[in-house]
């Protein structure tokens, strides 16, 4: 079955079996191996990508369901050589260890901050509560997201200040 979708701004067309899971389209057909999978039951969130404007668990979405839609993966998070503040936050705050859950965590974090630029620590925890990290105990992930929020607030403030001055 023909499926056409836009991943990280690039349009792809592939002929796939209807049963092909989105995560396998991304990893095996498009070679975008930054998104991982860690369970079979939609519990772990290692496979989180954006479908249009919201994060989803791509192990629980058929590739054909993404036809005509936009997908954002970790490979599309940075703006060229410039890392997204969420990516910077994870590196600055030791928000990752083995790095396996990290892409999904960062994509959820980006979504959270787009909708809530000043989350509380609890709101960060709630946002990532469908995703498992076995390394960090979550503490530094929370710090990383809050770091990115502060960074963006400062950037925003600087931009406003610049515009006003």
């Amino acid at each position, binding site marked *: 079955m023909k499926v056409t979708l836009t991943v990280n701004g690039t349009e792809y067309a592939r002929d796939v079996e209807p049963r092909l*899971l989105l995560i396998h389209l991304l990893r095996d057909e498009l070679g975008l191996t930054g998104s991982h999978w860690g369970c*079979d039951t939609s519990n772990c969130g290692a496979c989180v990508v954006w479908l249009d404007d919201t*994060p*989803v668990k791509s192990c*629980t979405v058929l590739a054909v369901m993404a036809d005509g839609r936009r997908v954002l993966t970790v490979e599309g998070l940075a703006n060229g050589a410039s890392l997204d503040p969420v990516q910077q936050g994870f590196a600055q705050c030791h928000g990752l260890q083995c790095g396996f859950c990290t892409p999904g965590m960062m994509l959820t974090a980006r979504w959270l901050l787009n909708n809530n630029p000043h989350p509380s620590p609890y709101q960060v925890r*709630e946002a990532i509560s*469908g995703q498992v990290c076995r390394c960090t105990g979550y503490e530094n992930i929370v710090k990383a997201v809050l770091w990115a929020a502060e960074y963006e607030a400062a950037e925003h403030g600087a931009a406003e200040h610049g515009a006003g001055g």
Partner: protein
Amino acid sequence: MQVPAQVEYERAGSVEHALTLLARYGPAARVLAGGHSLIPMMKLRLAQPEVLIDINGITDLCYINLTGTQLRIGTLTRHAQLLESSVAGEHFAILHDAERVIADPIVRNWGTVGGSLCQADPSEDLSAAFAAMKGTMIIHGPDGSREVSAREFHAGPYETVVGSSELLTEIRLPIRPGGGSGYRKVSRRAGDWPVVAAGAALLLDGDVITDAGIGLTAVGATHFAAAEAEGFLRGRTATPQTLARAGQIAAENCRPVSDQRGPADYKRHLACELTTRVLGVAVARARGLTT
């Protein structure tokens, strides 16, 4: 990773189109909404439909509307949309209570209200919530639409009255003044299915309970409801003793079974405990004492 067996795939562009496809494929087809119940079952090969009919393109099934005396929820409404809906929360705090503890934020982004109801898992949260609210389901079929009470929607574990050529399209909830509601779930961990959960929707006239809806999930309650406890409450004054007695009656009339979430005696205890607590919340909300 586990993967589904081979399956055919059709995309429905409208309710009529979906009904045509359902008529064409019959019981071999399954409706695919968010897929967050169905696709995991397919990966585990516990479900092996021959055809999937994807209704995600029927965007006019995705709404939350207030009409005079009813809240109407389109079947394709995502859990996250229901949780974010201020109009839903204003009239039915129980909906926000329940949605906040259904799966996790990412699953809620794509999983749908109708999909959860039609999966008919005996531990499903919304089934109990809608039972408490005494909602009505609108089902479309080849001969038009029909209404089914939430109390008659489930035919058993993983079974509903929606026929193989029919589609659940809407849930209607009656809005009545003087109401208060709430939902309380015990689970082993955030995002887990309930060990037991209870929902309540009460109407109060002064201190007197004029109508009571109690939903229970994961305890084998008939139609996810505690009808005997509801009957006990009707016309009684909402005292702590009355609510506690209703909890006991709810517990006496459910049929929990032991599993790794907990032994049957504990679940029966929880049916009492949670019913009592959530009735208390509903009373407080009806009186405007808490949000």
